[in-house]
C-alpha cells in the first residue's frame, strides 16, 4: 500500500508537471487526425494522473501528501485545458490554483495539524455507504452522458486567444466580472476578519514589543 501510494504520488507529480508543458503545443483541431494519437496519449496520461492523484487523496490520511496529490491533479487538469486549446485558462489554473490556493491550503494544514489524535476518516460503514453512493452517482452520470446526443459543432482550427477571452470578459460578461472582483474583495475582508485575534492586532505588536 505504501509503495503503491508512493508511485502514484511520484508519477502524478512528474507527469502532471511534464504533461502541462507537453500539452501546451499549439492545439490541433479535433477533426483532423495527423496528431490525434499524440493527443490521445496526452489525454490519457493526464487523465490517469488526475484520477490517480484524486484516488490518492481519497485513501491517504496525510494532509501534506494530499496537498502534493492535489497539486498533481490540478496540474493534470491544467494540462487538459491546454489540450483543449484553452491556454489562458490552463495558465490561470496553474498560477492561481497551484501557485496561490495551494499555498493557502498548506498554510491551513500547517496551522491546524495536531499530534495525530484526529481520526481522518469516518467510520467504516459510513465509508462503505459513501462508496456506494459515489459509484451509483458515477453510473448515473455515465448513463446520462452516454445516452445524450451531444450536438457537437466542428471546432475551428484556431485556439481561443487571450484577446478573445479578454474581450468577452469586458463586453458580454462585464457584470459577472465586476461581481467576481467584488466577491474577491469581500473574501479578502472576510478572511482577514475571520482570522483576526481578539484584543491584539497580530504579529506586528509582538515585533514592536521587542
Amino acid at each position, binding site marked *: 500500500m505504501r509503495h503503491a501510494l508512493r508511485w502514484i504520488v511520484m508519477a502524478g507529480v512528474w507527469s502532471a508537471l511534464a504533461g502541462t508543458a507537453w500539452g501546451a503545443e499549439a492545439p490541433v483541431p479535433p477533426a483532423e487526425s495527423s496528431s490525434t494519437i499524440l493527443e490521445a496519449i496526452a489525454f490519457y496520461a493526464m487523465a490517469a494522473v488526475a484520477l490517480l492523484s484524486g484516488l490518492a487523496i481519497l485513501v491517504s490520511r496525510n494532509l501534506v501528501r494530499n496537498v502534493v496529490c492535489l497539486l498533481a491533479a490540478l496540474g493534470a487538469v491544467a494540462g487538459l485545458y491546454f489540450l483543449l486549446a484553452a491556454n489562458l485558462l490552463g495558465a490561470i489554473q496553474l498560477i492561481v490554483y497551484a501557485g496561490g490556493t495551494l499555498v493557502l491550503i498548506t498554510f491551513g494544514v*500547517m*496551522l491546524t*495539524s*495536531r*499530534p*495525530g489524535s484526529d481520526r481522518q476518516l469516518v467510520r467504516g460503514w459510513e465509508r462503505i455507504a459513501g462508496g456506494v453512493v459515489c459509484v451509483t452517482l458515477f453510473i448515473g452520470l455515465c448513463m446520462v452522458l452516454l445516452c445524450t446526443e451531444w450536438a457537437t459543432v466542428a471546432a475551428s482550427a484556431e485556439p481561443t486567444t487571450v484577446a478573445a477571452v479578454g474581450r468577452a470578459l469586458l463586453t458580454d460578461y462585464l457584470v459577472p466580472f465586476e461581481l467576481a472582483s467584488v466577491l474577491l474583495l469581500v473574501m479578502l475582508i472576510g478572511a482577514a476578519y475571520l482570522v483576526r*485575534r481578539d484584543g491584539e492586532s497580530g*504579529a506586528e505588536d*509582538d*515585533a514592536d*514589543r*521587542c
Partner: protein
Amino acid sequence: MAKLTDKMVEGQPDLLADLDAETLATDDLLTEEMLVNMGPQHPSTHGVLRILLRTDGEVVREATPHIGYLHRCAEKIGENVAPFQFIPTTDRLDYLAAMNNNQTFSVAVEQLVGIEVPERAVTIRILMAELNRIASHLVSLGAYGLDMGAFTPFLYAFRERERIMDLFEAACGARLTYSYITIGGVTMDLPDGFTDACREFLEYLEPKIHEYNQLLSYNQIFIKRAGGVGVISAADAIAWGLTGPCLRASGVRWDLRRCMPYEGYEQYDFEVPIGLPQGGEPPVPPGVPQPRVPRGVVVGDCWSRYFVRVIEMYWSVHLVRQALDRLRPGEHKAKLPRSLKLPVGEIYFEGENPRGQLGFLVIGDGSPVPSRVKVRGPSFNNLSITSHVCRDCLLADVPAIVGSIDIVMGEVDR
C-alpha cells in the same frame, strides 16, 4: 508540525513545566508553541552556546541560554600552577583578546606581589592591548555582519585582523595565544622595525573603518535590523552587571581605563564613546570623518552596541599612536626571582577588556602557587541578559541580539 510537537516534548518535561499558564491563557487556545534548540551547533551562536527558544511562530517567547560546553576548569588550573604558568591559560579565556587577558592577570599578580614594571614594558603592554582591542572588535564587527546575513564585511575585518596578527607574530611568534604580556613586563622586546610597520598599519586601518561604516553601519537594511532591537536600558544594564561596550551602549559612561585607570592610562588622551540617540555625534579622534547616528536608532539597542565598538576602534588607533610616540628605550621586563612566592593576602583586579571588565581574584598563601584564582568574565555577565532581552522578539532578532552582545564562549565557560 504534528510530529514535531510530539518530538519536542520527549525528554524535556522540566522545560515544558516552565510554560507559564498565563501565556497559554491569554493567547488563543492553542497556538503552536515550539521549543527550538538554537545551538550548540548553530552558525550564529558564536561557539558552543545553546539557546533554548520557546517560540510561537516566528515570535520568540522565551530564550534561555545553556552554557558549559566548553568548560576547561581554568580556575582550578590556576590553583595548581604558578602565576607564570597560568598566563597561557588566560590566553584561552577570551581567545580573541589574549593580550588583554595576559595584561589583566599580570597586573593583578604584580599588585599582589608589589612589582614595579619598567616604563617601556608598560607602554608596550598598552600598545599590544589596544592593538588586540582593535583585532577583537574587528572580529566582533565582521561576525555581527555575518549574523545579519552580510558576508563580505566579515572577510574585510579578517583581512585587517590578519595584519594585526602579523604584527603580534613578529613580536612574540604566536598568532592567537600570545602569552606575551607577562608578570613584570613583556616576555621579549619589540623587534626592529616594529614601530614603522605598526604606524603603517594604523595609516591603512583608519580609512578602512570609515569604509566599514559606509558598507555596513549606515546600510539601511542593517539599521532596520539592528536599530531599536534588543534595547537594554541603563538601569537594566547595570542591574545585570553588564560591562564594556554593552554597558556603554546603554548610555553609561563607564570605562575602567578612564574611571579607575591602571597601567598609566590616565596619561593618554582618549574619549569613552557611549550609545547616542539618533542624530548624535560620537566623539572621534582628530582627522577622522565625524560619524553620525542614523535615524531609527535608540540608545541601548543592537546598533548602539555595534557602533560603540566601531568608535572604540578609532580611539584604540589613537591610543596605539600615542603609545608608539611614548616608546623609549629601556628594560622590557622587571627583574624577578626564578620562583615567585606570593605573599599572604588577596587581590581583586579588573581591567577593561574589549568585551568588558575582566576581573582576577588571586589569593596568595606564601607559596608560589595561589590558593585561589577566580575569574570574572565579562562575556558571562553580558550573556546573562539574553533571556531578559530576547523576550517577545522575532526569531531573526535572536542572532542579532546575541551577536551584538558579542560573547566568546571560551570566557563564558572558562
